[in-house]
């Protein structure tokens, strides 16, 4: 807990924004800008889910449901009721939060596998509702012609603008998340992850914090969903199915579940992987049939061989390497560091 941490988080955010500003100079292809925009949306999803899973230690196997509820609410409100996206998006987030609260209160009493099963079931129910309540959701044919976002005369109507929109939002949420984890709230979440009993006897209202972070991560997902709706302008239930929930979990897991930035790395990795598999399927038609299987297989392999996650795995390797090259710091320096806190 360095006193200057805030400035450094902010610094990272500024570095990120500069990188985003420069990217279109190097990436000219609309296809890749589209992939990158999708990566930003996945980053928002993964960072939100990581608050729940990585920090508070609660599993959700149904997170695509919140993504879907956010997307569908804004899509339906804007296309069928003519509501402005700037009202419809917050409405989608709010409705998602309410649903997450109602789902979270009973579910979060469960632990481990039971919580996984309950959230999985919830995700499934939402998916089925999206498919079969076609009076509202238009079923498998999906919702088309979702309006583009616009700020005054600035319409987010091309890939460069959409790239900026999604990434600026993602970086803002990364900053917010980094702030949350480095706080009294973030410590309470990590504490209950480690020991619910110990956290509770320190005065942490464990069930309240669990529901809070569940709703918060659902809000991230809803925001990601409403962004998706207005960026892609078309949604259908398959975007929010079970496999997406699993992908999100894998993003968080390979991100290492230990840092906000790790989740972003996980999101980037899986986005690329999924994209690569898709193009492989297009290039080699035989492979297309096995798209989902290959996809699942890779996810399993990642889980098996990178259990601590990509970022933690690499970090540990680097640390070990550094330690071998440099002797341990002199012990008398330590008290000084303490006094600086």
């Amino acid at each position, binding site marked *: *807990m360095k*006193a200057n941490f*805030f400035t450094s988080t902010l610094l990272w955010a500024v570095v990120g924004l500069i990188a985003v500003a420069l990217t279109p100079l190097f990436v000219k292809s609309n296809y890749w800008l589209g992939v990158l925009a999708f990566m930003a949306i996945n980053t928002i999803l993964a960072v939100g889910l990581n608050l729940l899973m990585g920090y508070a230690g609660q599993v959700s196997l149904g997170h695509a449901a919140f993504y879907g509820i956010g997307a569908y609410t804004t899509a339906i409100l804007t296309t069928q009721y003519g509501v402005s996206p700037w009202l419809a998006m917050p409405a989608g987030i709010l409705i998602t939060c309410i649903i997450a609260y109602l789902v979270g209160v009973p579910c979060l009493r469960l632990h481990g596998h039971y919580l996984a099963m309950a959230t999985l079931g919830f995700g499934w129910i939402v998916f089925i509702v999206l498919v079969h309540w076609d009076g509202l959701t238009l079923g498998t044919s999906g919702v088309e012609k979702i309006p583009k976002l616009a700020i005054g005369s600035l319409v987010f109507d091309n890939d460069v603008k959409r790239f900026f929109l999604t990434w600026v939002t993602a970086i803002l949420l990364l900053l*917010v998340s980094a*702030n*949350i984890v*480095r*706080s*009294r*709230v*973030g*410590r*309470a979440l*990590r*504490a209950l*992850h*480690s*020991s619910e*009993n*110990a*956290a*509770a*006897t*320190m*005065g*942490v*209202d*464990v069930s309240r914090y669990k529901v*809070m972070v569940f709703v*918060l991560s659902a809000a991230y997902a809803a925001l990601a969903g409403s962004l998706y709706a207005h960026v892609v302008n078309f949604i259908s239930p398959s975007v929010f199915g079970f496999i997406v929930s699993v992908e999100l979990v894998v993003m968080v897991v390979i991100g290492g579940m*230990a840092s906000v930035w790790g989740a972003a790395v996980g999101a980037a990795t899986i986005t690329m992987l999924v994209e690569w598999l898709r193009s492989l399927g297009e290039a080699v038609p035989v492979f297309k049939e096995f798209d989902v299987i290959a996809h699942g297989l890779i996810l399993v392999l990642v889980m098996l061989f990178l259990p601590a996650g990509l970022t933690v795995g690499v970090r540990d390797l680097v640390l070990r390497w550094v330690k071998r090259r440099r002797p341990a710091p002199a012990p008398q320096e*330590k*008290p000084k*560091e*303490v006094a600086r*806190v």
Partner: protein
Amino acid sequence: MSTLLEAGNVSKIFGGLVAVSDASFTVRTGEITALIGPNGAGKTTMLNMISGVFPPTSGWIRLAGKPIHHLPPHVIAARGIARTFQQVELFTNMTVLENVMVGRHLRSRGNLFTAATRLGGTNRHERKTANDALTYLEMVGLADVAHEDSGDLPFGRQRLLEIARALATEPSLLLLDEAASGLSTREKKELVELIFRIRKSGVTIFLVDHDMDLVMDISDRVVVLDHGEKIAEGTPAEVQRNERVIAAYLGEEPVGESG
């Protein structure tokens, strides 16, 4: 001496197993009270009920005259009871200092909004919390490892960290569950000094331990459980003379041997 904690006819039944049976005793303000008994006597179960980890099956517990046995643990913590665990339960995913900062949870401010936006003097509050936490680490002699991962501490220091974390809640009653077990002779001596310092700072102590020498040495009063029942309560001298206590310990280990 006034009474701080009072247990009345407390029982705890797990399935068919009676872990604590109709136990009544008191802990007086400002004193060191020990809870002893053979393995499985129900000591940890008693501490769990006092700290609200689970409620008693029947009976009542009062803190400063007010009933607490129906309250959840975080509310009991706010009422002024803190504890350590027989099986150390540190937040191993955090640094030593952060562990104690969690102990400051009830004594610090900040919510999701202020955390996310850094408004409302969040950074100032954070620094204050860290500084406050550091004073508790200094008190137990762990300031030098404040920024190390708590899981990396040697066992004896983990026990000290649990005490620092509990003290950080500024309790009126501190429950210690076998804080001395697994410690070296030197570490035990330091622990005893720490316990005396804690009492001197105005905190009442209720401790469970197997080390009879230590218990008889430092306690003002001793409560003895056997098979869930309270069989004796009094000064160390009284308890040591008590026939039921001697009989209970004959079955297990002689009084005075370290656990």
